[in-house]
């Protein structure tokens, strides 16, 4: 495990943006699978999701979140020294989305801008990379844009969102603690096998096939090994959270909120029970917003904790886990930060 302390960096604010379009897992699914879908909804705990309009992509949501955040912070565009985008829904295979957004957001050409390819574990990793870059003081203000466009009408799990987080150099800031891990032997558990270099897109990927429910599927769809992901999440995350608490010398009772990646209710409840956490300290947005991939931690903070976070200093433990396999947690003291209301674009 990689454990680290980042000093001199303040969590200055965060904004979340979801599409206006609401998708019901019960009503918006083909009739032949509707009764089976009720059982799925009961177990995964996801009733409605957000899905982008035809013209809308992750970067559009992230830009809206960033614009609102910059406005509320009253930060000037030319003050931003770095822009990191963590997504698996880039606008293009090349170039990276951060590069495009540097221009679209009107940031100066002296901005460091690059992408990181991570999914559900994105948020703690992104905060660590950007925080480590800023700790020495060369970068004073920076943005982290995290999220994905992963929703589809047929699959009941994923939901779209884009988020923006602002960090600033501040020698008086309390330390941030991180515990970050990777196990690439599980890379096939969540995978988009077609379209890269190793299995480049060919005519065979253009031919849909009918699954056992009579639903047409695409060979370019995401492959997800549910049991493997569940075993990984429920076995790896609880000890990693304990390791982080020990590393930070932080009693579990000192944490005000535990914000976990919103995977599904079965996974999240198992993690919570294994750690013996009170349900009031573990907010969830699964029911209304589904699994918003790397954006799920910030979305849950915006939707469920905004008022509490605006109400004074809070110690928040965030934990993301998923594709890679990859899992990371961090403890961050949030005080006097900016949290705009949820943006619906």
């Amino acid at each position, binding site marked *: 495990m990689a454990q680290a302390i980042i000093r001199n960096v303040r969590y200055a604010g965060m904004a979340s943006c979801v599409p206006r379009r609401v998708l019901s897992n019960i009503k918006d699914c083909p009739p032949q699978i509707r*009764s089976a879908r009720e*059982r799925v909804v009961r177990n995964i705990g996801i009733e409605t999701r957000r899905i982008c309009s035809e013209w809308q992509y992750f970067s559009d949501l992230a830009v809206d979140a960033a614009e609102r955040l910059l406005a509320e912070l009253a930060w000037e565009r030319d003050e931003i020294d770095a822009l990191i985008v963590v997504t698996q829904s880039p606008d293009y295979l090349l170039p990276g989305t951060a590069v495009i957004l540097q221009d679209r957001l009107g940031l100066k050409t002296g901005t460091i801008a690059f992408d990181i390819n991570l999914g559900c574990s994105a948020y703690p990793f992104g905060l660590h990379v950007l925080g480590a870059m800023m700790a020495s003081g060369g970068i004073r203000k920076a943005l982290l844009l995290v999220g994905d466009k992963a929703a589809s009408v047929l699959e009941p799990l994923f939901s779209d969102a884009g988020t923006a987080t602002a960090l600033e150099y501040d020698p008086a800031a309390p330390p941030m603690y991180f515990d970050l891990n990777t196990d690439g032997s599980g890379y096939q558990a969540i995978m988009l096998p077609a379209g890269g270099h190793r299995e480049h897109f060919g005519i065979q990927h253009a031919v849909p096939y009918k699954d056992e429910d009579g639903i047409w599927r695409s060979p370019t769809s995401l492959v997800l090994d549910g*049991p493997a992901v569940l*075993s990984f999440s*429920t*076995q790896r995350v609880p000890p990693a959270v304990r390791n982080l608490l020990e590393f930070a010398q932080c009693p579990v009772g000192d944490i005000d909120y535990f914000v976990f990646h919103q995977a599904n209710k079965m996974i999240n409840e198992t993690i919570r029970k294994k750690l013996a956490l009170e349900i009031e300290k573990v907010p969830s947005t699964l029911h209304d917003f589904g699994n918003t991939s790397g954006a799920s931690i910030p979305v849950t903070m915006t939707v469920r904790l905004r008022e509490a976070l605006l109400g004074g200093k809070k110690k928040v433990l965030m934990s993301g886990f998923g594709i890679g396999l990859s899992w990371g947690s961090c403890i961050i003291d949030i005080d006097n930060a900016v949290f705009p209301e949820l943006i619906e674009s």
Partner: protein
Amino acid sequence: MDTLEQFVEKFKNAVDFQTDVDLTGETNLKTLAEWDSLAALGVIIMFDMEYDKAITGKDLVGCQLVSDVYRLIG
């Protein structure tokens, strides 16, 4: 360790059958409409939380009867 009857009750809850079913150790899993990937998730969690035993999807693929799942308790 649970008896087979006690296990079957927990197994029913874990699979989340949509209608009540009579299960015995000899029930073939393939005859159960709800024996799917969602059921596998529920059973993996049940083993973890009730029996402190980590089983995998592959372990369940190797089971034909309810009693085969019961034997995974070890």
